[in-house]
């Protein structure tokens, strides 16, 4: 166990985590030249494109240092707030962390929150200033920031360039010398923490774990502590570039288990694996059943594709346990599914994967958070969809989820960032100067307020400087109303939103304006109204089409004219019919497109 080092990399998007990981694989000869291709760890196309890690991964390297071969387990962490629970479990599996900071960009909010998480788990932090080869590198400034933040010595910070390889030897040396080996008793009852799982179409669910105590052997009968399900350990092994089966994995080490599990929901990140016949007393602390926070309706563009959409979601769920879905129907959109996501990025990823991997084109309705409705009868109902809201007379109160948002910004944008957060119903909790020109703000805010366009706005008012991280904080009573949209008097269920009463008027007005842009003129006037209950709060009109005709249709015009109108018909078919009004699909995302 003394020769094992378990570590993760904490870095903001684009600060060079994946490049550094690749470089480590190369320096330890885990990766042959042949296998070398950019950013091995980000194995989904989508991850590589977005430059982020969606699923965490793990990889084992051997490194000969001063005559001893060390086993280095790199546990990669997802790089986005939507997946912060997975990050926390990966961190819990490590004894050390490389803190990678871009020399030209400095420390970002998300880096800090993950850093705190790592410090909270007593991880040894190895600070690295990366990209020192860049022209815009401000190595000394960034070192100042790190010293301020960690209270470490300046000498402890490694200056490196993952791109050129400078400093990588020093990093490997620091991993061995500074990160403590894991502790644990190989003979104690088995306790292994699941920090990730993946789906393989031949092998089923493969769970990645770190053994805290005991030894897991091939063929053992194991039990997952929190789900209480039992399995045969058909195969255990370590993760190199490919899976390498082993007879056993002992305390301190990281590995994988295959036990014929078909359903991703049985393998929960954070769960503890133990033996059936000699179980541990308690699971590893920190298990949480991660619940989706953002909900939206997904509808097939072609109504006939409903069953295909179901099959696609089923398959997606196999390697994405945090995705939930249940059938729902909408008068406007027909049959579809209410899907739950960890956050907006997660939603985007699911949509994108449906499109790329399953060729499914979907309409997504306005996303909303999950609300707890307390009825006058004393029941609590979780509402995932505005249309599920009970009648106002039956509601005692509604609670909405809140987040603790950490925002790092600079002096220039401080005022506008605070204003933005307060406009979004944020309450400032804390304000800390990290350096003379870097301020960390802590806000408690309703989750619903960051669902739409908060992040983009934050970026634009701070000229890209501000960074955001958030964690679910709790719930608060909210004065919410359901805002409905009516087209010629018919309510469009897919456009209803739950919104804070104070914002409803402004929101309703903007919604009507946006819809007016998006709904094409038809043969009659279309009244677009926003309403709270029976009360109309905003109205726009799409005036009737008055001239829509081509003058000539003689012998030579018929073919061309037929093709033109058939094309027009095709366009109409892609629209949704609300009463007599034809509504283009993009109108259902109007809310997301409002400025």
């Amino acid at each position, binding site marked *: 166990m003394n020769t094992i080092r378990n570590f993760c990399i904490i870095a903001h998007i684009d600060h060079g985590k994946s490049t550094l990981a690749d470089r480590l694989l190369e320096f330890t000869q885990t990766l042959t030249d042949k296998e070398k291709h950019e950013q091995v760890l980000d194995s989904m196309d989508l991850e590589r494109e977005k430059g982020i890690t969606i699923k965490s991964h793990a990889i084992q390297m051997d490194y000969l240092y001063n005559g001893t071969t060390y086993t280095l387990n790199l546990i990669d962490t997802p790089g986005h707030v939507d997946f912060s629970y997975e990050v926390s479990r990966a961190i819990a599996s490590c004894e050390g962390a490389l803190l990678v900071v871009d020399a030209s960009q400095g420390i970002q909010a998300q880096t800090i929150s993950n850093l705190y998480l790592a410090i909270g788990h007593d991880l040894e932090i190895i600070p690295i200033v990366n990209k020192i080869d860049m022209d815009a590198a401000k190595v000394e400034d960034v070192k100042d920031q790190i010293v301020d933040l960690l209270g470490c010595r300046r000498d402890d910070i490694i200056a490196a360039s993952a791109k050129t390889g400078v400093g990588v030897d020093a990093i490997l040396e620091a991993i061995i010398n500074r990160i403590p080996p894991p502790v644990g008793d190989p003979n104690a009852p088995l306790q292994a923490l699941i920090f990730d799982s993946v789906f393989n179409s031949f092998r089923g669910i493969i769970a990645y774990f770190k053994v805290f105590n005991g030894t897991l052997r091939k063929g053992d009968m194991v039990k997952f502590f929190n789900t209480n399900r039992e399995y045969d350990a058909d195969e255990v092994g370590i993760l190199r570039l490919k899976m390498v089966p082993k007879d056993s994995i002992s305390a301190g080490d990281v590995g994988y288990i295959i036990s014929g599990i078909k359903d991703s929901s049985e393998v929960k990140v954070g769960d503890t694996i133990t033996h059936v016949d000699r179980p541990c007393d308690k699971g590893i602390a920190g298990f949480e059943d991660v619940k989706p926070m953002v909900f939206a309706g997904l509808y097939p563009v072609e109504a006939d594709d409903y069953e295909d959409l179901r099959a696609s979601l089923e398959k997606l769920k196999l390697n994405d346990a945090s995705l939930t879905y249940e059938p729902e129907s909408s008068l406007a959109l027909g049959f579809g599914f209410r899907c739950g996501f960890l956050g907006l990025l997660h939603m985007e990823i699911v949509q994108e994967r449906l499109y790329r991997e399953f060729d499914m084109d979907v309409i997504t309705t306005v996303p909303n958070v999950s609300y707890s409705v307390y009825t006058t009868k004393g029941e609590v109902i979780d509402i995932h969809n505005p249309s599920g809201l009970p009648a106002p007379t039956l509601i005692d109160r509604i609670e909405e989820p809140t987040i603790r948002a950490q925002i790092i910004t600079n002096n220039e944008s401080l005022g506008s960032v605070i204003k933005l957060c307060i406009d979004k119903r944020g309450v400032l909790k804390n304000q800390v100067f990290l350096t003379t020109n870097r301020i960390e703000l802590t806000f408690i805010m309703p989750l619903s307020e960051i669902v739409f366009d908060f992040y983009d706005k934050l970026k634009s008012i701070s000229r890209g400087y501000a960074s955001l991280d958030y964690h679910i904080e709790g719930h608060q009573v909210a004065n919410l109303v359901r805002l409905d949209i009516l087209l010629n008097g018919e309510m469009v269920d897919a456009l209803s939103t739950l919104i804070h009463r104070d914002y409803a008027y402004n929101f309703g007005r903007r919604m009507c304006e946006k819809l007016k842009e998006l709904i094409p003129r038809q043969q009659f006037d279309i009244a677009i109204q926003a309403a709270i209950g029976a009360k109309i709060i905003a109205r726009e009109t799409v005036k009737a089409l008055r*001239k*829509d005709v081509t*003058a000539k249709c003689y012998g*030579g015009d*018929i*073919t061309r*004219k037929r093709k033109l*109108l*058939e094309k027009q018909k*095709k366009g109409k078919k892609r629209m949704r019919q609300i009463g007599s009004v034809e509504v283009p699909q993009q109108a259902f995302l109007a809310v997301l497109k409002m400025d």
Partner: protein
Amino acid sequence: MSGIYIHVPYCKRKCHYCDFFSVEDARGMNEFANLILEELRLRKDYLPTEPIETVYFGGGTPSLLTADRIATMLNGIAKTFSISPLPEITLEANPDDLNPGYIRSLLDIGFNRLSLGVQSFDDNDLQQLGRRHNAKQATNAVDMASQLGFNNISIDLIYGLPYSSTNVWESNLRKAFRLPIQHLSCYHIIYEEGTPLQRKVFMGRVTPVDEAVSVEQFDLLHDLASQNGFIHYEISNLGKEGYFSRHNTAYWKQIPYLGLGPSAHSYNKTSRAWNPRSVDAWINAIKKGSIEAENELLSEKDILNEYLLTSLRTIWGIDNGYIAGTFGIDQANRIERVANKYMQLEILEKCDSNYRIKPKKFIVSDGVIADFLTE
């Protein structure tokens, strides 16, 4: 029964808005009549039915041809096909090409209908459109033709013009109804791709009129025409009872036609064909003995859509009994549903057993027709 169309592709000068195929040089004009006879010989078996009910010389400017040459072509047609006892034989003419001698010759040859490209009775309009005649020539031409014996005269007018006004349009219409005409073809200006006028719009040098103006002028057309005994029988065509264009109506009633000359289209109920859009290519094709440049076989869907498209542009509308019988009850049911929608919107009306777009609503017909099409 069938129709014959002859496209005469010559113009002294091309009008700024026109996208019909025409050339400004007279190459091939001397042999044009003989080439048409040659094409006629090559394609005499194209038409599935006879007799020939209508013959139409369009262009281009057919009135650039001498009466003799036109007679050559007409005689050729008469020798090749059986002709109905009362055919409609039309010549499109430019007002300034007409003189008493020419008009008499046309009557002698057998023409019984004239379609005059008047476009406007306002000299400013005519100049902006690039027409070579003036308002006076236009009224004179109509009077002359009428006095010499044409009792079926149509004139073309254009409205919605960017340089013009509703007042000018109204005065155009009033002048037209004072003339001895039986038929009017009135087109809202179209900015056709590739025309000089479209280029001007694109460059921002010409601003199309506001939609409200288009509608105002359309309404004026419909109302004044009704007051003067003209029936608005197709989006752009109005005529006195008994004087509707039989040739054009045939296009909208799926009657076969043979198109001769460069760029001319033909239809024989199962396919559509079109000649090369170039004088040289057309001449070469005839000399090689094969003429159809392109041919499109019509599927059942195409046939139904063409029926819907052309019928709904007319006051005869669509006959859902015919649709049920020819295309099946499912189609008829589907059409019934769409029809109900537009009945409620008071765009469609039922006339005998047919659904038709109310002539007052012709101006919004494209979207309605698109809705009726099958996929």
